[in-house]
């Protein structure tokens, strides 16, 4: 329960009633007055109750978690979300049965969700968080795949003495490739193209 509409004889009474129902205190909510109410004649005729809308304030992390839960539920996937915050990085980990739908081909659905979460978290400009969305250890598996892909294509570049272009990837995946080959002094890596077509090139 995050938002409630309550009524009372006065605005104050209505707010108090809402706070009781939300089980919270006044400093943690935003109050919107819908109707100020009227005392009416002798307090009987034409009196109108005050109506207020009270919304519980959530920090951006809770907001993002609620958003993630909402979206996945409406996609028809039941998931459990484990949230960890470390410095400026928020990691949401999804655990559930139909998780494959949420990952998609080469993680495209997961990356799309991660991007939207990033927008939700950083909508207000007074803070900045990096958002990582993971599902059933997908990011770790992908990292291993990218490492072996990088090694293989580096060998190919050296063998053929030609540059090898990889397929377009999001920035955090390109970074994995660069990192994988940074200690390999037989090849150089750089990124070419403009997002969303930016990709790594391995140069012998």
């Amino acid at each position, binding site marked *: 329960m995050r938002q409630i509409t309550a009524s009372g004889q006065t605005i104050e009474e209505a707010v108090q009633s809402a706070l009781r129902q939300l089980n919270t205190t006044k400093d943690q909510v935003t109050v919107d007055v819908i109707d100020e109410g009227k005392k009416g004649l002798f307090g009987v005729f034409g009196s109108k109750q005050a109506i207020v809308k009270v919304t519980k304030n959530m920090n951006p992390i809770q907001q993002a978690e609620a958003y993630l839960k909402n979206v996945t539920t*409406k*996609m028809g996937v039941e998931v459990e979300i484990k949230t960890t915050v470390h410095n400026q990085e928020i990691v949401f980990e999804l655990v559930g049965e139909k998780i494959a739908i949420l990952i998609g081909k080469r993680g495209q*659905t997961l*990356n*799309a969700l991660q991007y939207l979460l990033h927008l939700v978290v950083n*909508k207000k400009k007074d803070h900045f968080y990096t958002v990582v969305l993971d599902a059933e250890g997908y990011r770790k598996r992908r990292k291993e795949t990218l490492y072996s892909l990088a090694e293989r294509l580096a060998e190919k570049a050296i063998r053929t003495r030609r540059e090898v272009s990889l397929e377009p990837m999001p920035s955090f995946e390109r970074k994995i490739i660069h990192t994988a080959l940074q200690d390999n002094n037989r090849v150089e890596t750089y990124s070419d193209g403009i*997002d969303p077509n930016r990709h790594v090139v391995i140069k012998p």
Partner: protein
Amino acid sequence: MKALIETIVTPLVDFPDEIVVTEKEEEHKITYHLTVNQTDVGKVIGKNGRIAKAIRTIVYAAGSDSKKRIYLDIM
């Protein structure tokens, strides 16, 4: 599906009350049409359509088990 689109878009815009999603069903496809307040258009499309692309990716993934092809029109 309409609810999904609304859920995705609501926190992105400044005027959530003005989000309208309509549905048009044809023989082989279902088209969803999304409109938002004029000032919010950029917030659902994004630079080079990046946000629009992300929204579509999720909507299409959710519609992957339906028999009909799903499309999402924005504005």
